[in-house]
């Protein structure tokens, strides 16, 4: 009886010794894992810090690039506006020049008509009075139109 009990006690002692040894080994492995992971965390923290610094630099560069893009887009837009205004001014000048040419031509034709009328009147007896009168009326109309065109042109230039 005592022998059996002694064997049981020895068995329990052996199991406790084995358990203690295994737990010591396990604890050691966990500690090793913890140290490895700790090293990894430290490494990643350092990398994160470096990456954060890179990100901050990239953000600064992005902001600078965005600002430059805005500036260039704005400069281009302002030049485009100026160009559009200049084009309109040139177009206006061209239309004024064309109008002035037309008025000048009308006035020339008026002068020519009046000169021709004077020529006819110097020798009025040689012409049909009705036709002479109609020619004089046409010259008046032509000159009246030329004067009106000139007046409108002057008004436009003054405006």
């Amino acid at each position: 009886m005592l022998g059996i009990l002694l064997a049981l006690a020895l068995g329990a002692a052996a199991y406790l010794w084995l358990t203690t040894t295994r737990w010591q080994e396990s604890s050691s492995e966990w500690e090793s894992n913890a140290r490895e992971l700790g090293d990894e965390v430290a490494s990643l923290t350092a990398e994160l810090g470096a990456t954060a610094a890179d990100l901050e630099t990239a953000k600064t560069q992005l902001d600078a690039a965005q600002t430059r893009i805005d500036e260039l887009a704005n400069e281009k837009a302002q030049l485009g506006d100026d160009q559009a205004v200049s084009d309109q001014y040139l177009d206006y000048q061209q239309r004024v020049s064309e109008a002035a040419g037309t008025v000048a031509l009308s006035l020339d034709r008026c002068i020519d008509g009046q000169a021709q009328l004077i020529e006819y009147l110097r020798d009025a007896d040689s012409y049909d009075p009705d036709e002479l009168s109609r020619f004089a009326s046409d010259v008046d109309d032509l000159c009246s139109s030329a004067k009106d065109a000139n007046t409108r042109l002057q008004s436009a230039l003054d405006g």
Partner: protein
Amino acid sequence: MNRHHGRAPRGSLRRTRTSVAHAAVALVLVAGTTAGCGVLPPLPDPVPAPSSLVPDEAATLLDGEPADATVDDTSLRPMAVRIRNVQCDGVSTGSGFALDARTLVTNRHVVESSRSLEIATYDGQDIEVEEILATDVADLALVRTTADLPAHPELADDDPEQGDDVTVVGYPEGGRLTLSRGTVLGTTDDPLYSNLGQVLLTDAEVEPGSSGSAALDDDAEVIGVVYAKADGGRSLLVPVSTLDSLLDDAGTFAPLDGCDGG
């Protein structure tokens, strides 16, 4: 005689004491062994590799949003466009924003009486205009383009509430692309009589040239279209509900004649 009767024999007493001691040791061992089976620690589980202890997925914020899901100024800019309206007797500028890849929204008064319309994106690229459409019931117009626009926002489902944040993205005075922030002050009757129904009043600062700008909420969704500057540095918006209802009615927007009849 009495002493003999009063004591047990010596040899008998020693045997009795030995038996008791053996029983006690046996009891302790049995009790210890029996109890020990219940309290003895188990053997440890195998230790996993360090790599298997690291989670596969990154942590997320409490509200479930990814950490980088914020709306910043940079993401708002590409939706804006600058509009140059070359008229028969002058040049004016305004703003607009993309509704989809080839359609942009602006004000009617920004694009009317036009001889040619010139669109520029936030980064200065020129976009050709294909068609100009406008409606008579609100100060709104649509411009179809021949090339894709860089980005377009979503329209909000509902009009904003009083006190909601608003960001206006446009080109005040025809200058640089600008973000102007403020809050929604409420609704009001249109003082210019150019829109049916109520319009929105905000304290986001705008200037001539801001007309047609997108007004955005905190989710970068369109809540209105700037169409006028009011007294006291306030601004007037065509609400998104008006824009939405007009877009749903295909016949509302009609081609707009230019200043030379074209």
